[in-house]
């Protein structure tokens, strides 16, 4: 029995819940939420079974392909795929989703569109699981776009807020730009291989036969088709995963409810791009064999990843909104993952993806707990002193913060980040990703310390913060579970016991010493300590006294801080370039339509009228605007001619008759002469 043939159950369960939620009237809160949570629990159990089956044979790619529809002589085929990568992602996604669904019960309790919220959440989970389990790039793309749709719906969940509506649109449009690249890559790939199945018993696009064909230097400049296709697919991944320069939507997406930020914009959806890169890694790496190619796809990925990692971390330093800090931190961490893929270690990327999913979901839910307790106060300058009031939240948030900062040995973030840095160090092409990664480490530790001290230390700086009380169990229990995950998950992939690595690659990875390269580890530990120390020195030593006080860094370097706080002005840059360009294009199209094409037709008509004028058919309406200038001369001439026109039809007829007679007589006289 092929376990992959039952894989469709995993996305189908939440999809059913979503359909149920969509048809439930507003009052059916229990039904919608219950169905969604039950479906997620079912999906989690099914995922565990799937993972179990996948781990039984880690090297085998279990597939179940089927025909979607016939077209011409061929057919479009789709399929499901099961291997350890899928299995782990399934479990992670469904577990995090389940926890966040439960969290949402408490967080969204007062919202009047509660049922709709669970419907969208379930739709998202279904689509995300669809991305994970599909064995066809087409099916993956379908789910991919549905993920985008549910993200759109959830960011704009409070659609009556104009900012939320705008953020939702921005997210959809920006990711769509990337997706169009993905789409073209997909179409290109389909055209050159005739299939979109990843694994198909030797005929799939990730298998040797197809890759050999794609990796030939077919394009101008000795580029391989696989390089171009890989980069186009990377466009999609970059859009979804908030990579520079398509990251601009992610901070705005924080307009959505906090569980949404945690689930979609921290743990799962944004990681889908990294997952995609890992999934099609053989394709991305196909051009590595081509030594003469001027550009390798993975080099670009590594470069973009490094830039994103550094840029995200730098911007996060200067944000004042609790969720925006976390959002830019997500951007930065996603950059790390892409960097890992780019330097060839997709295993490290997935390792970091899994640990990041837990600790970032934890951080967001912790932030959600704070926001819930303070009645939607998100400005860190107006919070403060919550450590004593919300002990569970504080403790779990601190765990997440330390995992993210990479505090050594205990927390999962340390291990996954070390493996990325290690991979970057071993990359032969360039050292820049490593330097960027190390610079990111110190910034990460610094801004997370700043955030924690601003929110939890000192004394309350607003009424809302004074009133804050610990959140109910439905919120804190998921926090505790995630905190446990944020600590324990790291031990799955330590160099001493590389269980995760062996499973993902399907080949036994020999266990080595706990610390692979002591120098690198020492450097990164020192950097973490430096970041933590700097954060404590600036924000922890003397906590901010009131909300209006200036940030110590802003006081020292106002220009730099303002530039970073304005997100490096990238949004403005986009408004000036892409926005201007598209509105100019639309103006041009509209102008062509109204003036040129329509004008050409009218000109034809007017020419007819002019001919009429010359013949005396004076048109009372004259000529319309737009042609006045040209036609004024004709009009005058016509007016002169039209003196003869009395408007008396019978007069014309009479003139005709007389003219005829006169003409005949004249002709006859001419003949007879």
């Amino acid at each position: 029995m092929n376990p992959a043939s039952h894989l469709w159950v995993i996305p189908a369960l939440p999809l059913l819940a979503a359909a149920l939620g969509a048809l439930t009237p507003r009052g059916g809160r229990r039904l919608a939420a219950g169905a969604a949570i039950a479906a997620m629990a079912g999906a989690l159990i099914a995922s565990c079974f799937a993972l179990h089956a996948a781990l039984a044979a880690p090297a085998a790619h279990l597939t179940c392909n089927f025909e979607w529809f016939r077209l011409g002589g061929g057919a479009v085929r789709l399929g499901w795929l099961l291997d350890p990568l899928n299995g782990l992602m399934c479990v992670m996604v469904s577990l995090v989703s389940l926890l966040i669904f439960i969290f949402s019960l408490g967080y969204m309790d007062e919202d009047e569109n509660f049922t709709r919220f669970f419907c969208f959440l379930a739709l998202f989970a279904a689509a995300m699981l669809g991305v994970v389990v599909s064995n066809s790039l087409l099916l993956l793309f379908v789910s991919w776009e549905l993920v985008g749709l549910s993200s759109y719906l959830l960011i704009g969940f409070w659609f009556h807020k104009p900012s939320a509506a705008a953020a939702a649109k921005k997210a959809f449009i920006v990711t769509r730009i990337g997706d169009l690249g993905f789409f073209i890559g997909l179409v290109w790939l389909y055209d050159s291989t005739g299939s979109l199945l990843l694994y198909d018993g030797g005929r799939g696009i990730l298998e040797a036969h197809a890759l050999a064909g794609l990796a030939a230097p077919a394009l101008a400049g000795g580029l391989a088709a696989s390089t171009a296709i890989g980069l186009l697919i990377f466009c999609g991944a970059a859009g979804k995963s908030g990579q520079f320069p398509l990251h601009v939507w992610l901070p705005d997406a924080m307009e959505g409810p906090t569980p949404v930020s945690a689930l979609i914009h921290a743990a799962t959806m944004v990681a889908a791009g990294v997952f995609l890169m890992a999934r099609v890694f053989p394709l991305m790496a196909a051009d590595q064999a081509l030594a003469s190619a001027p550009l390798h796809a993975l080099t670009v990925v590594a470069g973009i990843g490094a830039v994103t990692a550094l840029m995200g971390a730098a911007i996060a330093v200067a944000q004042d909104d609790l969720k925006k800090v976390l959002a830019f931190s997500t951007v930065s961490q996603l950059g790390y993952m892409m960097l890992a893929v780019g330097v060839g270690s997709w295993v490290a990327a997935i390792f970091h993806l899994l640990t990041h999913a837990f600790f970032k979901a934890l951080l967001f839910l912790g932030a959600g707990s704070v926001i819930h307790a303070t009645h939607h106060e998100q400005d860190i300058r107006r919070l403060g002193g919550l450590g004593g009031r919300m002990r569970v939240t504080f403790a779990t948030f601190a765990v997440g913060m330390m995992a993210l900062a990479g505090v050594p040995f205990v927390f999962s973030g340390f291990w996954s980040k070390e493996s990325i840095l290690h991979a970057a160090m071993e990359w032969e092409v360039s050292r820049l990703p490593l330097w960027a990664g190390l610079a990111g480490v110190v910034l990460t530790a610094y801004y997370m310390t700043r955030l924690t001290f601003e929110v939890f230390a000192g004394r309350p700086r607003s009424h809302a913060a004074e009133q804050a009380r610990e959140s109910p169990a439905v919120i804190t229990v998921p926090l505790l579970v995630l905190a446990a995950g944020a600590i324990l998950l790291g031990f799955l992939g330590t160099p001493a016991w590389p269980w995760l690595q062996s499973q993902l690659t399907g080949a036994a990875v020999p266990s080595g010493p706990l610390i692979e390269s002591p120098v690198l580890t020492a450097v990164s530990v020192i950097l973490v300590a430096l970041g933590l120390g700097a954060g404590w020195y600036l924000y922890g030593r003397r906590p901010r006294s009131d909300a209006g006080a200036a940030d110590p860094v802003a006081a020292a370097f106002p220009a730099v801080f303002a530039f970073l706080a304005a997100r490096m002005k990238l949004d403005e840059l986009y408004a000036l370039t892409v926005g201007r360009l598209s509105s100019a294009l639309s103006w041009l199209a509209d102008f062509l339509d109204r003036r040129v094409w329509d004008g050409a037709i009218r000109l034809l008509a007017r020419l007819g009228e002019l001919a009429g004028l010359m013949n005396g058919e004076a048109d009372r309406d004259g000529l319309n605007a737009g042609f006045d200038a040209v036609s004024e001369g004709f009009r005058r001439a016509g007016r002169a001619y039209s003196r003869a026109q009395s408007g008396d039809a019978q007069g014309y007829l009479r003139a005709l008759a007389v003219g005829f007679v006169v003409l005949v007589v004249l002709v006859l006289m001419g003949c007879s002469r």
Partner: protein
Amino acid sequence: MNALQLCLAFSSLLFAVGLAGALARSNAIIVLLGLELMLNAANINFIAFWRFSPSSAPATGVIFVLFSIAVAAAEAAVGMALVIAIYRHQKTIRLPDATDLKG
């Protein structure tokens, strides 16, 4: 004068009558009907030439007349519609009053 010339004379006279009517009367309907008479006169010519033509095999004259009648029908329909339109605008169908197209 042979028979063909008689026919042609007949048509000429009919044409002249139609023309006189179209010129003399001020009622648009009568004017239009005068035009119809002139068309009829032209048709008579076709038939006459066809009837007395040296090579009588092709029925061109007849066919031409058929088309001409069709066109006349179209013309009459549009003409009468015009009359009604003018009437609606001006409350009269006197042609001497319908001089909006005056230059």
